[in-house]
């Protein structure tokens, strides 16, 4: 059997590979090359410029401030969404009345269109008429309305990232829940007989076995937070208190029409995503078998 070249696996992966080459790698190759060119429709012609785009983009004060902000988004977002994702998945692990409805409820934040999410959370955080202020004041927790967004950097970034975490936690939960469903009940039964309590079972059975799910969830959260755009743009405008790398990519490309620099910044984001993801995946991911 093994002597001839086995064509079946290639047949199975070929549609996938064709898609990836034509519609993912080709566009990416285009931008990778363009990152080394001066592509400025307002300043033609397009010509090779070596590392100039990279040098210029890293001297852009807005890009520098967005780097720091994006770092905070990643730290807050990945931590919160992963912890919540594990928590939600464990809550949903066993059958109980209403579990189906709860899963449907869980995905709602993800299904809300970005524009509506923007008005919703603007209305919640707003410093003049916001719901949160309204509620806190009626509970006598604050004496006058507070400004949550735009003044204090950390508070602004935290408030914005909570919105993104609200949106991406459904994804983390589903990813982890799928893996959780695969853990045989016997393992828990056996542990219980050996005198293990719920906390110990969680630490010694659940956590090690859901690592592949967590790895995927963490990588997804890294990608999402590293590319955060809508939430800061809608909630805090272009201000450097909370601007993100993705917003700067957009501004450099579509506002300043300096596509070469935009591609250079994109390329840096891609490389950074890959490095972090590979490290994280290597660290968390471990093939499991039951």
């Amino acid at each position, binding site marked *: 059997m093994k002597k001839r070249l086995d064509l079946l696996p290639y047949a199975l992966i070929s549609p996938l590979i064709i898609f990836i080459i034509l519609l993912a790698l080709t566009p990416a190759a285009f931008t990778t090359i363009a990152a080394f060119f001066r592509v400025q429709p307002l300043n033609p012609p397009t010509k090779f410029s070596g590392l100039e785009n990279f040098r210029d983009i890293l001297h852009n004060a807005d890009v520098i401030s967005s780097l720091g902000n994006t770092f905070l988004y990643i730290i807050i977002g990945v931590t919160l969404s992963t912890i919540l994702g594990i928590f939600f998945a464990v809550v949903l692990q066993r059958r109980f009345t209403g579990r189906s409805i709860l899963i449907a409820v869980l995905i709602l934040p993800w299904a809300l269109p970005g524009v509506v999410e923007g008005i919703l959370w603007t209305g919640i955080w707003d410093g003049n008429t916001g719901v949160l202020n309204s509620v806190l004041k009626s509970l006598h927790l604050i004496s006058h309305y507070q400004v949550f967004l735009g003044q204090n950097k950390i508070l602004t970034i935290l408030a914005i990232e909570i919105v993104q975490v609200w949106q991406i936690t459904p994804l983390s939960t589903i990813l982890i829940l799928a893996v959780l469903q695969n853990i*045989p009940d016997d393992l828990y039964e056996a542990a219980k007989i050996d005198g293990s309590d719920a906390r110990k079972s969680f630490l010694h059975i659940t956590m090690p076995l859901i690592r592949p799910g967590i790895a*995927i969830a963490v990588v997804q959260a890294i990608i999402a937070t590293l590319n955060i755009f809508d939430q800061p743009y809608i909630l805090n405008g272009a201000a450097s208190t909370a601007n993100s790398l993705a917003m700067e990519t957009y501004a450099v490309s579509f506002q300043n029409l300096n596509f070469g620099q935009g591609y250079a910044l994109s390329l840096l984001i891609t490389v950074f995503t890959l490095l972090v993801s590979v490290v994280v995946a290597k660290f968390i991911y471990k093939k499991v078998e039951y």
Partner: protein
Amino acid sequence: MQPRKSGFRRFGVGFILSWSLIPIYWVINTSFQTDAQISDTPSHLFPPTPTLANYKALLIGDGELQHMVRRSTINIFIECISATFITVTLASLAAYAFARMEFKGRKFFLFMVVMTMAFPTYTTLIPMYKIMAMVHLVNTYLGIILCYVSGFLPLATWILFSYMQSLPAAIEEAGSVDGASRMQVFRLIVLPLAMPAIASTAVITFLFAWAQFIFPLVLASDESTQPLTVIVAAIQGRHVVPYSLLSTAGVIALSVPAVIALLTNRFIVSGLINGSVK
């Protein structure tokens, strides 16, 4: 068995409900108010004079707006369902090969696919648009669907690969004893066992597609292909933003995935494997 104390569950259920539903409640609450009421301070925790005017404005009647909302709902449905179907089909086949077969270049191809997730949206937007224009797929369902499929295949493949890899080695052995071909093993054993992962992948792909904005904005030129998300954004006025109307559009946009999730989520948590395969 009940390894978790019901106190934990009660807290968890309460937390999930408040976490997801309080903000969503606010959207629903807003959709039954007028713009003037929405900006009242203190905010109205319930609609003071509940009105269906916003729902009527978007759904009932034969005006241009209602037509746009209806058409774009059909569009988004077609685009998301097709993209999900193709993505899950192709990803399952590829994941099976990656997870259960040895072949030259396995790691290379797998990494090549998964790494494309790292490309930021704005990196691929313009070249993708150029490619679609070249093959005359701008403003077609197929163009949008192919774009989605290429974008969501890597994650779908990774999820299914990871899941199929964790299935016990015994299944192939059992299959070969019965004289089944590998595709029969795939169809009769692996696919049913991977159902929770397949269902999860389908839900995830569908929701990713449902939330798309910038690609369909650029790839769809008119109402024949524009999905609901683009239309929801379009109804923002130039100078006056209709908060209540947009919230209503948000509720409409939520309801389809909510119903689908309700109908399909039993597959996510089907957990067929529990104790049945050693």
